[in-house]
C-alpha cells in the first residue's frame, strides 16, 4: 500500500517479512536459468572420464548429425582465447577447451550446442574421446608425509607466537590428538546456470552468482573486452554457500558458445555436474596439541592442518585460523600444508576454515576437559581471550561470556552429569555437549545508489547479490529506517553490474558492507534535498540553513521550526533526484582491531545402542553478532547454519573413488544432508548488542557463524552419550558402532 504522505509512520526496527518473499512464493522471482532471450540455444557440458592424461582425438561425427545439434566444441575446434590469469576469488582454474590436457575426472572437455536441452544431452553421449591416460594421485591418507606448504606464501600465514617449544615444558598436562574432516560439496538447491548473448562486442550474461562484478572481470579478461562491454545480471540466487563466489568454466564457456553460434546460449549444470568442476571443501587431517598449567590455563597450543589440494591450483581451507584467536594463550602455533591430488579445485564453502576447524578444536577441548575432570564450559571460561592473542589487538566487541551464560541457562547445562553413558531413554543413550562458535567479521568497500522519483517511490540499488540471505530486505529496511518511509515506496535493485560496485557475497560481509553504503546514500539524499529546497521558493524550507534540515518519517523537517515537507513533493518539483553513497571499513578495523562474532552452542543427542544411529534432540545456541539487523532473515540464517552443522557432524561426505578420481555419491539421494526428521528443535537467541566500532549500524555478518561449533558440540554429546570419541567426521552409524569406548584413564 502507498503510504499516505501526510501521516508520518512509526520508525520500524526490522522489516517483519522478507522484501522478496512475495515474488518468491508467487514464482515471480526470475532465476538465471529462467531467462529466455529470443532464439536461445542449449549447451551441455561434456566432462572427462579420466583423472589425468591427454586427449588424443575426438569423434564428434555422430553427435554433429544428431537431431537439433548446432555445434560441437572441443579443444580441437574451440576458438583460441587470450590466456586468462587466475585471480581469486573472481576466478578459479578454468577449463575452456584450450588444451588437450586432462587435469581431473569431470573436467569440462567439450560442449554440445543444440536446439533443446534433451538434444544437447543426448548428442553429448555420442561424442567419444580417445585419451592417453597417466597415473593419477588420488590417495590422500597415504601421502600425508608428502604434504607441502601452500604455493602462495602466507595464505593463510603460518602463525607462530611466543616462545614456541620452550613453553611446552611448563605444561602440567599435555593433550594431543588427530581429527579429520571429509570432502564436502556445496549443493545449493539451484545449480549453476548461465545464459549468455552478444550484441556486437558487447556481452550480456545472466548468471547464478555470488559476485556479479567478479564475473564481469573474469569475462572481460577471458575475451579481452573492455570492462564496460560486459554486463552481468543476477536478480536471485537459489543458494551459493561459496561455490558461486568464483566464475567456473561454464560461465566463459556459455559466452564462448554464444559467440560461436551467434545466438543466446543457456548452459545449466545438473546435480551430478555440481560435484567436481565447481569446487568443494577440501579434506583435512588436523593434529591438535594443547598444554595447560595446573589451573587449566593454556600455556601452549598447536594446530597443524594437512589438506588435499588440486595439483593445478591451491585452495587453502584455513582450518586452524580460529585457533590463533579463540582462547587466551601466549604460545600459539598453527600451520597449513597440502597434499597434491589430481582432482578439481577446492573453494570456499560456508565458513571456510572455521566449519572444518572448530569441530577439531572444540573436540580437543572437550577431551582435555575430561582429562582434567573439569566442566568443558569452565575450561573455556578459564581461557577466555580478553584480547586477540594472535594479533595482540583489542576486539571491536566481544560478549562471548554472556553468550555462554545465556545458552547454558536455556539448555540446563548446570544439571550435567559428566559421566559418559549416564543418561538413557530405553535403547537410546543420551548425551550433552557444548562448543564455541566463531567467525570473523568482514567488511569491504561498497557503493549504493538512491533515486527519489516524482511519484514518491525510492529506488535503492547496489551491485551486490542476495543469495537467499536477505540483502534485498536489509537494503530496503535501511532506506525505511533512514528516511522513515513505508517499505511499499521502496524499490530495491541488486545483482546487476550497472549498479554501484559491491563485494562478493561471501565471508558473511554483505550486510556489513552494503548496509552502510545505503545509509551513506540516504545521508547524501538529505544533503541534496536540503541544498535544493533552501533555494526553492515553493518549499516551506526556502531560505533555511541546510544544516538545520533533516529527513524524518518521509518528510524533510526543520530542527529549528515546525516547517516540514514530504520528500516526494521535492521530487515532484525538481524531477528525479539521484544520489550515490559509498562506505568503507571503519578506521579502527583498518588499523588492525580484531573483529569477530561469537557464539555458544549446546546440543543433546540420542544414540541408538544397537545400530549406532545418532539423532540430535535439541540445539540451543546464543550468539554475539553485534546488532541483529533483521530478525526474520538473521534468525533464519543462524538456524540454517546450525542445520549445516548437523549435516557436517552426521551426514555430509563426498566420497572420492581412489582409482578413478570421481565423487561416487554424486546425487542428493546418496550425498546426505539433514532431512526434516534429522532437524530437531533449534533454540537460537542473539545478544543483540551493537558493535558500532565495526559498522555504523552495529551489525556483524551472520551468514557463516551458525555452522561453526555445532559439529563439535554434537561430537562431544556423542562422547557423553556413549563414551566413544569419533574423531573422523561425519559421525555415521558404522563409526559409532565400531569405535571402542575410551578407556577411563585416557
Amino acid at each position, binding site marked *: 500500500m502507498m503510504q499516505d504522505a501526510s501521516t508520518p509512520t512509526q520508525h520500524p526496527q526490522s522489516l517483519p517479512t522478507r522484501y522478496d518473499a512475495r515474488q518468491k512464493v508467487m514464482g515471480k522471482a526470475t532465476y538465471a536459468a529462467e531467462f529466455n532471450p529470443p532464439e536461445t540455444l542449449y549447451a551441455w557440458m561434456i566432462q572427462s572420464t579420466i583423472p589425468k592424461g591427454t586427449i588424443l582425438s575426438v569423434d564428434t561425427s555422430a553427435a554433429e548429425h544428431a537431431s537439433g545439434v548446432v555445434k560441437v566444441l572441443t579443444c580441437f575446434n574451440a576458438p583460441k582465447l587470450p590466456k586468462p590469469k587466475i585471480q581469486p576469488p573472481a576466478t578459479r582454474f578454468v577449463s575452456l577447451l584450450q588444451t588437450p590436457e586432462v587435469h581431473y575426472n569431470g573436467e569440462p572437455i567439450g560442449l554440445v550446442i543444440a536446439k533443446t536441452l534433451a538434444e544437447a544431452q543426448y548428442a553429448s553421449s555420442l561424442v567419444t574421446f580417445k585419451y592417453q591416460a597417466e597415473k593419477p594421485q588420488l590417495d590422500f591418507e597415504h601421502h600425508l608425509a608428502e604434504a607441502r606448504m601452500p604455493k602462495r606464501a602466507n595464505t593463510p600465514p603460518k602463525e607462530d607466537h611466543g616462545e614456541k617449544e620452550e613453553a611446552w615444558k611448563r605444561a602440567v598436562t599435555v593433550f594431543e590428538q588427530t581429527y579429520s574432516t571429509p570432502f564436502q560439496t556445496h549443493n545449493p538447491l539451484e545449480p549453476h546456470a548461465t545464459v549468455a548473448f552478444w550484441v556486437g562486442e558487447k556481452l550480456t550474461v545472466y548468471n547464478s552468482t555470488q559476485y556479479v562484478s567478479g564475473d564481469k572481470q573474469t569475462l572481460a579478461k577471458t575475451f579481452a573486452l573492455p570492462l564496460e562491454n560486459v554486463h552481468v545480471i543476477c536478480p536471485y540466487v537459489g543458494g551459493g554457500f561459496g561455490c558461486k563466489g568464483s566464475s567456473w568454466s561454464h560461465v566463459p564457456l556459455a559466452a564462448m558458445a554464444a559467440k560461436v553460434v551467434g545466438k543466446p546460449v543457456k548452459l545449466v549444470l545438473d546435480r551430478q555436474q555440481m560435484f567436481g568442476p565447481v569446487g568443494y571443501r577440501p579434506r583435512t587431517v588436523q593434529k591438535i596439541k594443547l598444554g595447560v598449567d595446573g589451573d587449566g590455563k593454556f600455556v601452549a597450543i598447536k594446530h597443524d592442518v594437512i589438506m588435499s589440494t588440486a595439483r593445478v591450483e591451491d585452495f587453502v581451507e584455513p582450518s586452524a585460523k580460529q585457533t590463533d584467536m579463540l582462547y587466551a594463550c601466549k604460545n600459539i602455533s598453527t600451520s597449513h600444508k597440502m597434499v597434491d591430488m589430481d582432482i578439481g579445485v577446492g573453494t570456499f564453502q560456508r565458513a571456510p576454515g572455521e566449519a572444518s576447524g572448530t569441530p577439531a578444536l572444540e573436540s580437543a577441548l572437550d577431551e582435555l576437559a575430561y582429562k582434567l575432570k573439569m566442566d568443558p564450559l569452565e575450561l573455556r571460561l578459564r581461557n577466555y581471550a580478553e584480547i586477540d592473542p594472535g594479533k595482540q589487538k583489542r576486539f571491536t566487541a566481544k560478549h562471548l561470556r554472556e553468550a555462554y551464560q545465556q545458552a547454558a541457562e536455556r539448555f540446563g547445562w548446570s544439571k550435567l552429569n559428566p559421566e559418559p553413558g549416564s543418561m538413557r531413554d530405553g535403547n537410546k543413550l543420551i548425551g550433552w555437549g557444548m562448543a564455541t562458535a566463531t567467525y570473523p567479521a568482514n567488511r569491504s568497500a561498497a557503493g549504493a545508489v538512491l533515486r527519489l522519483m516524482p511519484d514518491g517511490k525510492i529506488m535503492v540499488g547496489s551491485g551486490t547479490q542476495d543469495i537467499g540471505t536477505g540483502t534485498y530486505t536489509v537494503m530496503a529496511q535501511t532506506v525505511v529506517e533512514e528516511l522513515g518511509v513505508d517499505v511499499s515506496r521502496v524499490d530495491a535493485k541488486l545483482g546487476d553490474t550497472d549498479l554501484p560496485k559491491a563485494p562478493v557475497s561471501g565471508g558473511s560481509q554483505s550486510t556489513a558492507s552494503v548496509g552502510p553504503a545505503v545509509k551513506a546514500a540516504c545521508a547524501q539524499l538529505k544533503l541534496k534535498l536540503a541544498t535544493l529546497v533552501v533555494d526553492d521558493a515553493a518549499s516551506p524550507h526556502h531560505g533555511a540553513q541546510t544544516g538545520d534540515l533533516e529527513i524524518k518519517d518521509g518528510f524533510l523537517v526543520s530542527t529549528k521550526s515546525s516547517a516540514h515537507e514530504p520528500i516526494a513533493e521535492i521530487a515532484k518539483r525538481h524531477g528525479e533526484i539521484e544520489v550515490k553513497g559509498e562506505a568503507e571499513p571503519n578506521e579502527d578495523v583498518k588499523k588492525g582491531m580484531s573483529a569477530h562474532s561469537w557464539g555458544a552452542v549446546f546440543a543433546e543427542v540420542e544414540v541408538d545402542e*544397537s545400530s549406532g544411529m545418532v539423532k540430535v534432540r535439541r540445539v540451543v545456541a546464543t550468539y554475539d553478532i553485534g546488532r541483529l539487523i533483521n530478525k526474520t532473515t538473521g534468525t533464519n540464517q543462524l538456524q540454517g547454519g546450525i542445520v549445516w552443522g548437523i549435516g557436517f557432524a552426521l551426514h555430509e561426505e563426498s566420497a572420492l*573413488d581412489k582409482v*578413478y578420481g570421481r565423487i*561416487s555419491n554424486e546425487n542428493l539421494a546418496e550425498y*546426505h544432508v*539433514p*532431512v*526434516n526428521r534429522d532437524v530437531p528443535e533449534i533454540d537460537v537467541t542473539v545478544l543483540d548488542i551493537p558493535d558500532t566500532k565495526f559498522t555504523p549500524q552495529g551489525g556483524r555478518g551472520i551468514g557463516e557463524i551458525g555452522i561453526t561449533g555445532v559439529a563439535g558440540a554434537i561430537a562431544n554429546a556423542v562422547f557423553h552419550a556413549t563414551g566413544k570419541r569419533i574423531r573422523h567426521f561425519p559421525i555415521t552409524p558404522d563409526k559409532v558402532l565400531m569405535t571402542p569406548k575410551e578407556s577411563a584413564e585416557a
Partner: protein
Amino acid sequence: MNPFAYERVMDDKAAVHAIAANKDAKFLGGGTNLIDLMKDNVEHPSTLIDITRVQGLAEVSNGGAMIGALVRNSDLANHADVRKNYPLLSMALLSGASPQLRNLATTGGNLMQRTRCYYFMDTAFPACNKRKPGSGCAALTGFNRIHAILGQSEECIATNPSDMNVALAALQAEVHVEGPKGKRTIPIAEFHRLPGKTPQIDTTLKHEELITHVALPSSASEFATHSYYLKVRDRQSYAFALVSVAAGLMMEGDTIKRAALAMGGVAHKPWRKKEAEDAMVGKQANAQTFSAAAEILLHGAKGYEHNSFKIEMAKNSVVRAFSLALVGRTA
C-alpha cells in the same frame, strides 16, 4: 537420455504382446527408477510401454493378500487390510524413499528396482559388469561402503535397495506373472537372483513377461501381532538401508511357534535362510535365540574395505528387530 518411442496399453494381453514384440522395450510404471536411469544414460530402452492404465492391476483384495502390480507404494502401505494383516509390509514400505516417490512408485516397479551401486549408476565409471557385462567391478576396489557382504561374486557386489522386497521375502510372497504362453507363479525367494557370473540379470522374470500381482500367504497374517521392520541408515529418513531387518514372530506363550526373517542392504537379493528361522522354532523368545538366528543368517558374510561394519550391524539389528517385534504392535 536417448530418443525413445512411447506407447500405452490398456490391458494385460496387449502389454505382453507389445513387450514380446520388442526386445529393447521396457514397461513404464511409476518411472521413479527407470526414468532416472534413462536420464543418466544407464538404461536406454527403444520404447516405453506405459502400463499404468492396464485394467484390474491397481487393487488390493483378499484381505491384503492379493496385491495388484500397479498398486502405488503409498496406497499399499496405508491400505487398512495390509496394515491389519501385514503390518510388516506396511512398515517396510513407509521406511522407503519419500512420500512423493511412494505416491508414484508401483508394487511391480519396486520389485524391479535396480541397485544404487555408484558404479552402476554413473556411466563415467568404465567398470560395471551389471551395466556393461565383462567390464569388471569398480566397487571391489572402490568406495564399497553400501555394498554386499553375502551372496556376492567377484563379478558384482551390488545390493538390492528395496525395503518392500525384504518384507515380501520374510512373508514368503509369490510373484504372479503373465507371458505369451500364459501365467506362472514365482516364489519371491526365486524372483531376485544372486549375481554369480551374470550380474546384468537382476531377476528371473523373462523379458516378455508382465508382473500382474504379488500374493501373500494367508498364514503370514499370523505374524501381524509380532512383526517389525528395522532400518539402519545414515539419516532419519530418505536414505537407503545400510542394513535392514524384516522380523516376524508367531508366539505360543513365551515360545516361538514360527519365525520370519529377511535382511536388506546386505546382498543382491533380500537375504533369507530357512535354517535361521527354523532354529528359532520352539525356543524362548530372547536375545540368545535371536542372536543364534543372526549367526546362522550371517554365516559366511564377507566384508570389503569400507563395509565390514555391516556384519556386526546386521547381527545387532536382527536381535533388535526381533526384540521390537516381540513387544508387538501398540495400537
